[in-house]
């Protein structure tokens, strides 16, 4: 018989470690037509970071995502970056790119101020224009300004910057201190059916609410959450590297290392929690890793809710779940006569 259960799990996850140097550098070059090229030493590993970083540069420069081209991952040409790790790219590399774009924009403002007859401090960049704050009708296109800067004045609008979340030492005895710049939070709730004759767990749906500060690109945030959940599903129910008594792998292949297929994944509903972190670029924190954190816990709590057994070692294979169910039944039978 199938028994339904629900389980909730929440988590916190740090963004921007501070126990070691964690720097990113970036260069933003505004081309003479008002488009921009970004140089970054990070690597696109599938999460869409180059798109997000381009959006950050575009936002700072007042242009569109499509106006920005991001060049990445070449030690000869791109500035140093600590790397595509630890969910740091949007936050740390993003801050570096934002600062570099601001530096490039400052050059554009120097050029635009006399064109518009105002002070630099009165300018803002919006909608591919440099305009006077509160008087958007007084404007000049970024392309025109960039062209003038580079071709007429000989001051190309190029900015470089680096950013490092302030490094702080921790107390070695107590571990007290500020090991990370900021944290994100999330909750996932799973609904499962447990077959109490086979122990099979079917995950029906998962609701996930994740904080990432400002979502620079909500579509990509959702993609991260959905992907993280699939890893969590594998961790909860299926995946395990096994060794024989001599330390040799038993299942080093995708036939016997069981990871989720499209048929094993539940329906997923993703919500992005409204948040804003003043230390991140445009309020953003990060999202990559946290998505995989609460899934297994939520599923295991749902199993517990469904059949009343607490599986304490992962993965909760069907056999393990059935063994626990049988043990529970045996214990109940023993209790009755007493």
């Amino acid at each position, binding site marked *: 018989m199938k028994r339904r259960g629900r389980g909730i799990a929440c988590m916190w996850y740090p963004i921007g470690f501070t126990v070691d140097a964690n720097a990113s550098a970036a260069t933003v070059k505004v081309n003479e037509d008002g488009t921009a090229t970004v140089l970054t030493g990070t690597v696109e590993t599938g999460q869409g970071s180059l798109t997000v970083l381009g959006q950050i540069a575009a936002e700072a420069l007042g242009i569109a995502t499509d106006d920005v081209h991001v060049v990445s991952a070449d030690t000869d040409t791109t500035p140093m970056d600590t790397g595509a790790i630890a969910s740091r790219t949007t936050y740390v590399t993003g801050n570096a790119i934002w600062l570099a774009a601001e530096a490039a924009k400052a050059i554009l403002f120097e050029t635009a101020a006399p064109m518009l007859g105002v002070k630099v401090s009165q300018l803002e960049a919006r909608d591919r224009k440099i305009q006077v704050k509160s008087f958007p009708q007084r404007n000049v296109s970024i392309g025109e300004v960039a062209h003038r800067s580079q071709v007429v004045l000989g001051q190309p609008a190029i900015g470089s910057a680096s950013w490092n979340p302030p490094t702080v030492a921790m107390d070695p005895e107590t571990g007290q201190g500020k090991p990370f710049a900021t944290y994100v939070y999330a909750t996932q709730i799973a609904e499962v059916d447990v077959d109490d004759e*086979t122990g099979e767990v079917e995950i029906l749906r998962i609701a996930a609410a994740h904080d990432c500060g400002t979502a620079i690109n909500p579509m990509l945030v959702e993609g991260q959450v959905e992907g993280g959940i699939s890893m969590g599903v594998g961790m909860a129910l299926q995946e395990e590297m096994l060794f024989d008594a001599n330390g040799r792998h038993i299942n080093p292949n995708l*036939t016997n290392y*069981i990871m989720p*297929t499209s*048929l*094993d994944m539940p329906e997923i509903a993703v919500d992005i929690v409204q948040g804003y972190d003043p230390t991140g670029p445009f309020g953003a924190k990060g999202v990559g890793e946290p998505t995989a954190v609460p899934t297994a816990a939520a599923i295991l709590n749902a199993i517990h809710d469904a059949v009343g057994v607490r599986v304490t070692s992962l993965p909760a294979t069907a056999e393990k779940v059935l063994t626990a169910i049988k043990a529970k039944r045996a214990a109940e039978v023993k209790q009755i006569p007493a």
Partner: protein
Amino acid sequence: MKAFGYVSAKDLEHAIALLGEHGARAKILAGGTDLLVELKHAVHNPEVIVDVSRLHELKTIAVADDGLHIGALVTHSDIMNSPVIRDMFPALVAAAHSIGAMQTRNLGTLGGNLVTCVPSMDSGPALIALDASVTVASTEGQRRMPLFELFVGPRKTSLKPGDLLVDIIIPKENLGKPAAFEKFGLRKGQALALVNVGASFWIDREKSVLVAPRIALGAVAPTVMRAPKAEAFLDGCKISAEVMAEAGRIAAMEAKPISDFRASADYRRDLVAVLVKRALANAQARATAKEKELVA
């Protein structure tokens, strides 16, 4: 893969001649989904690969006087899409659908699946439950034998070098016999069976008892096995949920599973009991549905 010769057979006659010529030095390539993996892992090092995948005569599904003939090169997808099989044997469709994924089902053939003779093969239990037999051809001519006799041990068939499996026949008397296939794997997609079960029976409507029950179990013995005690128990029994559950418990005692990294023997026995019960219930549901169809 280690180097080998390759020859593609034009037709059945050509294939048999090639196999007769090369004998034990050859391996037969049909769908290739198992053979290529074995060649890549150097399980076999044949001198020559005889590719029979172009033999159109082995790709037909047809009802003849003696029963339903399924060509050995019929793919799992072909079985899923065959109107005849869908109508007569949804259990075979279920077994075919449970194999691998779309890509491997498009390549893999029924004959190929049977001759791998892996204990967890999915086609075997469904066909054994329907008393299927097979035709084997060689330079010495064709012969027919029960499918059960094909299976000798894990990855070991009774076929000799030079033999080619030609077709699989479900006997006339079993056409439309209510049957069901149940499988339990470690996940839903691309799952290998921890246990699979084929079951079939006729229902004597007057007495409302089970007749000619068959229970075939996979992945719980060196080859696909029957569960004769459970079958004997069911034979002539009145249909009820309790009877089906009891047959499952008997079959579980008969199963000879091993423990491995995928599951323990005890768990596999538990699964046998559950899956046999469910297969019988599904076969009964199938019988009832078929009856309603006939009445309508």
